[in-house]
């Protein structure tokens, strides 16, 4: 095992700095110490020279250090004489010093916290404009479809339809059942305190029909289908399939987005009907088995408070959520950049965006419903 390499520095009166390389340089031993040489170069030397008489073996750990020193020398306008170096070492240093692409060709988005905050705010604003723009384009495509001038692919339509309906039903049913059970448990705790167990059916009726049925279906479909839409369109974007459509004069909005939006808007209310039924059933089981509410009493109570308008409100919400989920999923997919991890990113963003929009929309609809006494 040879000892670690050293770089000795001498400065002659003429201003010539000589770097004397000695021993073996090996990556496993770390890079050689170059502080002395750096200091000497800073003292206004005029020429950088090498002496490699005692140099044994070397690898990139030496080249990296010399490259840094040469950069310092070059920055000070110092000529560099590599003639004493082994042929390959000189070659590598010359190669590294030759000018390639310059960094900074692509602009950085922001520097400093304030400009970053500004950049993010304008980005959020633009994001909203893009969403509106995208929704508008999809609406126009829908209008075209209704007037019979659109080129929607019906085979796609049926494939997506199956995916967002029958294939989504098991998970929607399972989650809704559990949500019904959870609401009933909540009611059990709260209502028992007032001795008002009979009112459990009020809570379940209102809770499931007006709110939880649609919201839970929306959240499930955002995670399941919205993400899938974004990933599908995103990978099509990466493999330039969407560009291929556009160059053929086919609008990707009509061809890809429309079938997805339309199917989801049609199927969300149907899924919500199932979610409502199963959710109420879940609550009923808890009410009857754990709270001692009579079966007949439960249904009479349910019928007494919950009306068709509550059910309709849920379905209306479901349709709105359908629009939001499909639009955000497709939009994030279409905005996907051309790289592999961009697809995952698009799917994540689609889920976050659609769940946020669902909750916002739900709040607004509830406010309007209270206002108009629905």
């Amino acid at each position, binding site marked *: 095992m040879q000892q670690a390499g050293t770089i000795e520095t001498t400065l002659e009166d003429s201003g010539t700095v000589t770097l004397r390389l000695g021993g073996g340089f090996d990556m496993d031993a770390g*890079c050689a110490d170059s502080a002395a040489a750096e200091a000497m170069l800073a003292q206004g030397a005029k020429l950088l020279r090498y002496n490699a008489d005692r140099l044994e073996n070397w690898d990139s750990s030496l080249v990296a250090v010399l490259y*840094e020193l040469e950069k310092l020398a070059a920055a000070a306008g110092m000529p560099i004489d590599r003639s004493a170096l082994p042929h390959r070492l000189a070659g590598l240093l010359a190669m*590294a010093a030759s000018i390639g*692409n310059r960094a900074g060709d*692509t602009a950085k988005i922001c520097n400093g916290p304030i400009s970053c905050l500004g950049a993010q705010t304008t980005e959020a604003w633009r994001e909203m404009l893009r969403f509106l723009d995208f929704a508008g384009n999809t609406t126009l495509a829908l209008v075209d479809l209704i007037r019979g001038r659109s080129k929607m692919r019906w085979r796609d339509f049926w494939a997506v339809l199956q995916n967002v309906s029958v294939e989504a039903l098991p998970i929607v049913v399972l989650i809704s059942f559990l949500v019904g059970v959870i609401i009933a448990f909540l009611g059990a705790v709260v209502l028992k305190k007032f001795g008002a167990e009979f009112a459990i059916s009020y809570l379940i009726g209102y809770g499931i029909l007006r709110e939880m049925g649609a919201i839970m279906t929306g959240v499930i479909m955002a995670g399941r289908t919205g993400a899938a839409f974004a990933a599908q369109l995103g990978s099509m974007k990466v493999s330039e399939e969407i560009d291929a459509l556009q160059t053929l004069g086919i609008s990707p909005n009509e061809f890809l987005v429309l079938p997805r939006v339309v199917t989801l808007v049609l199927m969300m209310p149907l899924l919500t009907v199932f979610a409502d039924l199963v959710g109420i059933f879940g609550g009923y089981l808890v009410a009857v088995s754990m709270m001692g509410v009579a079966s007949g009493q439960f249904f009479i109570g349910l019928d007494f408070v919950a009306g068709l308008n509550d059910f309709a409100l849920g379905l209306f919400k479901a349709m709105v959520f359908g629009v939001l989920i499909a639009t955000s999923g497709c939009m994030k997919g279409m905005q996907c950049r051309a790289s592999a991890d961009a697809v995952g990113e698009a799917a994540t963003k689609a889920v976050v965006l659609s769940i946020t929009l669902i909750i916002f929309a739900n709040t607004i609809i509830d406010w309007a419903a209270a206002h108009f006494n629905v």
Partner: protein
Amino acid sequence: MSAADTHIQVRGLTMAYGSRVIMQGLDFGIARGGVTAIVGGSGCGKSTLLRHMIGLLEPAKGEILYNGESFTAAGTLRRAEMLRRFGVTYQQGALWSSMTLGENVALPLEQYTKLSAQDIRRIVQLKLALVGLAGFEDYAPSDISGGMRKRAALARALALDPEVLFFDEPSAGLDPISSRRLDELILQVRDSTGATIIIVTHELPSIYAIVDQCVFLDAETRTMAAVGSPAELRDNPPSDTIGRFFRRDAEEAQPA
């Protein structure tokens, strides 16, 4: 070729996917410090051969030796040590897209050496400068052009001072100028690192420009048809297929 300067030896190699034989009876040696091209028509198994040589695929029969030591028979640990001496540049660059260029080049160094973070940064700077990408440490692979990605991938392949450099279709998807620049870069790398270079390609201009030795794979006979320098194979082709490959396209590709 004397045994001393034979770097890589392929002996009786048969490559197969399950029971489907791709190529059989491959026997050739590769000289140290030379540029060797694996050539042949599309789909003849060029990339498959390369993947056998770097251990991504296992041979159905035969073995591959580096410096006289069998890579095929080596155990997991020994193989990892041998792999450390390889640098591979994949067809699409295969830069890890979630990391910056600097992190891409640093990963092999972090994995295989005990260098400090500061030293790794220095070596990364050097490697990127070598391929003409000085100052691009903080760029994401998606922020740079295709030609730059290829060169960044070369910087990553060079990270550990490899003895053998593999290139899978280096000029695929590049314009003639970028592809010539890459050819020049490959020659510079060979001259200054002394690495043995193996290229999978079917670009004749680039074959004539940089290759010392060709291994021609024939898709019809499913075996190696010839080994020789590109000029030799063009002027005295051992078979019609080879002659057509080197001559006819050569006339088209070199109008001057």
